């Protein structure tokens, strides 16, 4: 029997993979991709909660839809920023993008 815990652990693993990628990759686009992974992990959580905890109200799914919307926006803007940075610096290696300091 597949329980809620299974889904939650799946989502946790996926989230951690995404987080690991976001924290360790050098390519800005790769980081964006990994953030998408994390958002998807969250969505799995939400949907699983709907199924197991509140089957009569679909709030979790609604949330997931909004997350998807926001994720779409985020990717669009994020990529735009990455492109702008690339145009300026000819590089998207995040370790070099440290002009925010001091």
């Amino acid at each position, binding site marked *: 029997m597949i329980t*809620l815990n299974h889904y939650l652990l799946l989502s946790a693993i996926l989230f951690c993979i995404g987080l*690991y990628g976001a924290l*360790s990759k*050098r390519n800005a686009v790769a980081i964006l991709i990994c953030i998408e992974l994390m958002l998807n992990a969250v969505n*799995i959580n939400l949907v699983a909660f*709907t199924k197991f905890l509140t089957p009569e109200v*679909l709030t979790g*799914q609604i949330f997931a839809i*909004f997350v998807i919307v926001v*994720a779409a926006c985020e990717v669009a803007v994020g990529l735009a920023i990455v492109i702008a940075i690339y145009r300026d610096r000819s590089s998207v290696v995040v370790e070099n993008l440290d002009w925010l300091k001091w």
Partner: protein
Amino acid sequence: MDYQVIAFWLLSFITLGSALSVVFFTNIVHSALALIVTFLGIAGIYLTLHADFLAAVQVLVYAGAISILIVFGIMLITRGDGKMAETNLFGKYKYTAAIVVTTLFGVISYFIIRTPWSIETAALSENTIGDLAEILLADYVIPFELAAILLTVAMVGAIVIAREVKNPK
């Protein structure tokens, strides 16, 4: 073993495997392709959770639109200098991040397991689209509209940011 169990394990395996590939591939294009697989796997997971509409959305938006967007992005920012295999390397936090993430996972899973969830056994309706539509267009109509505005804003914003600066002065 019913089909659900098999489907879950299979889909989990696909999703996590491709997710790991996303992270560990050193070619950014490969990573992007693996990402599509992950998205599709997640869509499958949704189906096991009776979220048919969401699964469809997942396929359309993520596997379809966002992946394409990302691939386009990669195309725009990657130099064609033949070193594609080095476009997606790890940075200096390869090991540190691994430790942090593993600990985090330990913490999360500990709490997941310890939490006594109050499971509702009632079944979801077979077709969620109708129910979703009712909620989305009644209770959540304002957030819904706001989401539309957000999308527009994001689109305009993306165009403004990404547009080539004609005259730097």
